């Protein structure tokens, strides 16, 4: 892409993300919405995050990993354990990444 195209792409992305963020906050009237969807939308943020995270952990180049000797899985487990213990964002990141790097550099996983 040329710089101009990247610029246009960026401006469009900014408008799209802002439109999503403002979608329900801006209108004067409540948008009509069936009750089941109203209930269900509460679960959309967590579903979206899980949908981004899980493939990053268990897939390589579009395929499910076929070995348990993958440093990412143990990194994720360490991160989950620390999160359950301390509820800290920073500790989760540091412990998970450190575990992953330790396995990668010592065992080559």
């Amino acid at each position, binding site marked *: 892409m040329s710089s101009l195209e990247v610029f246009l792409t960026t401006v469009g992305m900014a408008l799209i993300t802002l439109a999503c963020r403002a979608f329900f906050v801006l209108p004067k009237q409540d948008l009509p919405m069936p009750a089941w969807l109203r209930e269900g939308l509460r679960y959309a943020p967590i579903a979206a*995050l899980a949908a*981004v995270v899980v493939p990053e952990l268990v897939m390589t180049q579009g395929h499910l990993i076929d070995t348990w000797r993958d440093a990412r899985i143990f990194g994720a487990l360490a*991160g989950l354990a620390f999160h359950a213990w301390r509820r800290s964002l920073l500790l989760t990141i540091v412990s998970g990444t450190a575990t992953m790097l330790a396995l990668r550099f010592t065992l080559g996983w």
Partner: protein
Amino acid sequence: MVRRPAFREGAIEAVPMAIGLAAWGLVAGVAMARSDMGVPLAILMSVIVYAGSAQIASLPLIAANAPIWVVWATTLCVSLRFLAFSFSYRPYFAHLPQRRRLALSFLMGDTNFVLFVRRFPEFRPGERHEDYFLGSGLVIFGAWQVSIISGIVAGHGIPASWGIGFAGTMALLALTCAQLRSRVSSLAAVVAGCAAVAAYALPLKLNIIVAIAAAVAVAVLAERAGAKA
């Protein structure tokens, strides 16, 4: 000047989260530096798009010279969770002037949402919800921009073999865990994770939409079943 205790409270509670988020910001910045889109455009994108996952998803598409609409469609798929944030914030912000609502919308993100729903599980008239949101939102915005711009500027000095991208995945994992507050939400997360893997081959990150739809459907059914039991 009017005192704003809720603003201070939001800002202070955001600091520990902001430190964790800065690690991810650095990672995202390094990824942007490697994409060869150039420092000025990378900084512009960080400031005006302000959505880490959408920015990261756009990089390989821009590098591969994909049509612009493909990048936009992918951005939309990755940003759909903002709709859910927006829906949740409506009762808290509905009384504010429109311009202010738009400005607050710009600051919506995962971290801010986690903090806000923890502090205000439900709307209570008379509380300065928007002050708390603004306090935490500005701290997170500042931490994110400083870290991602540092990553963009220093990016080429950090070797890829450090696997630093994994820190970003861990940040998202922690934000996911922070929203696990009931058995139904855990179920939704598991369903979404499985569906996203199963539908991974779809273009435009449509697997995320499939995953949200599946998880929302299962969660609604589970709630109804639970209510009857």
